[in-house]
């Protein structure tokens, strides 16, 4: 009788679904508890207060030493992740927009070279590209004493890339550089890899956005006497941006998630440090939970922003 009525059926299905989910959860949790006890692995997040005991190769903002807590180590990892993500996003957006616009150029060389760039970068896995850049920096670059200097103040060597900052320019002292900002080979490889890879996807988004604007808009603007540049700036781009922003934000999120590949080339991002922590304490579940919680927070924040944007800024 319950299953005769449609409403009854719906309730039954949902009850069954909840039941199944609860059963699975119970099954997993009870097994896990038993296994953890058998292997004498601790539970809980108490370990965060304990001394970490390992060094971290580089830290973007915070100071850290081996006697600091695990929690601090993880926070350093997080700031490292954010550092490479933010700079990567800025570089990728600039490069990607340029290439996207180039794809629409009337110039044959510009159009086809940028198309080739996009095709190549999109069809090779990011991990391969990261390993490639790391190999370029560590194998092909000369030592600091013979460092390449493509621009004044910028030095490329196999110990990393050195750039001038507001506080000073890098100078060679002995076997290494002092002053300015130093990008370690790991950071540089990760940054270049992420930026060039994501730029290819952003290029396609920009191109699609501009093509999405109705042809008549450009024609009307030209008929009114607006120049090509004015038309692009005042009529096409504002409309294209509304189509571009959602998928662009999605790419930003991808770049941030992709920065987790840092663990493969030795850059101490959040995943890297969480991995080390898990290996040392044996508390894998807590470690993975932390990683997932952090990334989920970032993704959900960006989704929330996107929803706000769609509701308020998109075309009525």
């Amino acid at each position, binding site marked *: 009788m319950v299953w005769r009525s449609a409403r009854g059926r719906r309730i039954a299905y949902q009850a069954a679904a909840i039941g199944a989910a609860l059963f699975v959860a119970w099954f997993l949790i009870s097994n896990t508890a038993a296994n953890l006890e058998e292997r004498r692995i601790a539970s809980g997040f108490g370990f965060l207060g304990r001394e970490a005991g390992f060094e971290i190769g580089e830290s973007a903002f915070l100071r850290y030493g081996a006697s600091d807590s695990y929690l601090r180590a993880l926070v350093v990892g997080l700031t490292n992740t954010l550092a490479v993500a933010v700079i990567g996003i800025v570089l990728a957006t600039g490069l990607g927009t340029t290439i996207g616009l180039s794809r629409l150029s009337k110039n044959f060389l510009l159009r086809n070279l940028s198309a080739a760039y996009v095709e190549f970068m999109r069809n090779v896995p990011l991990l391969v590209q990261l390993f490639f850049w790391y190999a370029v920096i560590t194998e092909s670059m000369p030592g600091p004493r013979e460092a390449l200097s493509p621009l004044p103040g910028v030095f490329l060597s196999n110990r990393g890339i050195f750039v001038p900052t507001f506080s000073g320019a890098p100078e060679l002292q002995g076997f290494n550089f002092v002053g300015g900002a130093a990008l370690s080979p790991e950071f540089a490889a990760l940054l270049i890899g992420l930026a060039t890879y994501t730029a290819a996807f952003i290029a396609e988004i920009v191109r699609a956005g501009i093509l999405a604007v109705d042809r*008549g808009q450009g024609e*009307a603007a030209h*008929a*009114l*006497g*607006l120049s090509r540049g*004015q038309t692009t700036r005042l009529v096409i781009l504002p*409309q294209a941006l509304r189509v571009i922003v959602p998928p662009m934000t999605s790419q930003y999120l991808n770049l941030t998630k992709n920065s987790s590949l840092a663990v493969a080339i030795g850059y101490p991002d959040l995943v890297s440090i969480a991995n080390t922590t898990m290996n040392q304490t044996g508390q894998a579940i807590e470690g993975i939970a932390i990683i997932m919680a952090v990334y989920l927070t970032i993704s959900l924040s960006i989704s929330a922003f996107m929803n706000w944007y769609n509701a308020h800024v998109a*075309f*009525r």
Partner: protein
Amino acid sequence: MIEMIKVSKWFGLFQVLTDVDLKVAAGEKVVVCGPSGSGKSTLIRLVNRLEEHQSGRVIVDGVELTDDPKKTDAVRREVGMVFQSFNLFPHLTVLENLTLAPVWVKHVSRKEAEETAMHFLARVRIPEQAGKYPSQLSGGQQQRVAIARALCMRPKLMLFDEPTSALDPEMIKEVLDVMVELAREGMTMVVVTHEMGFAKTVADRVVFMDGGRIVEAAPPAEFFGAPKTGRARLFLSQVLGH
């Protein structure tokens, strides 16, 4: 005002216009009609170089249209165009749509541009819509805004590419009324349209095109009353029959 001498145009290998000769004097109103695919839209788009001709000469207001972008810009400043799909800028208000070109092309001050804009909005009878966005207006209102937008550049010549074809029937009249008023004030107009009533009322000349050529051209009384060619007769019977 417009002189087209033996103009031909190809899209790839397909010839859309063949040896077209056309002269439009200042103050003249010319209606271009014909079956679809006859090249009439392409013809008027040659006047402000939204399309380029491959052979022959196109001279507008004394300026010959060539590859030189400066000449094209000069012509476009004096020629206004109204499109079938309105092509209003959706991200700008009605007022901003009207002031954009005067400010950025003619370098008129914003205040002056807005005054001109309100003047022409009143002319097309929708001054109260100045602050609205195009999506909030009806089709007929949007097309009238489009006409006002073209007029704000104070053109010497207005081109209309099937201005009422995308409108619901009850809105066609309000747009045609504006066009008739414009004609009566002496504006030079070239209008591609199926609205034969408009042609009868306002046109000095009706140009009939078919297959990329001008087949017949005559004052409306002559064209509608005694069409000379068989193709014109066939077309008229199809268009006027129902």
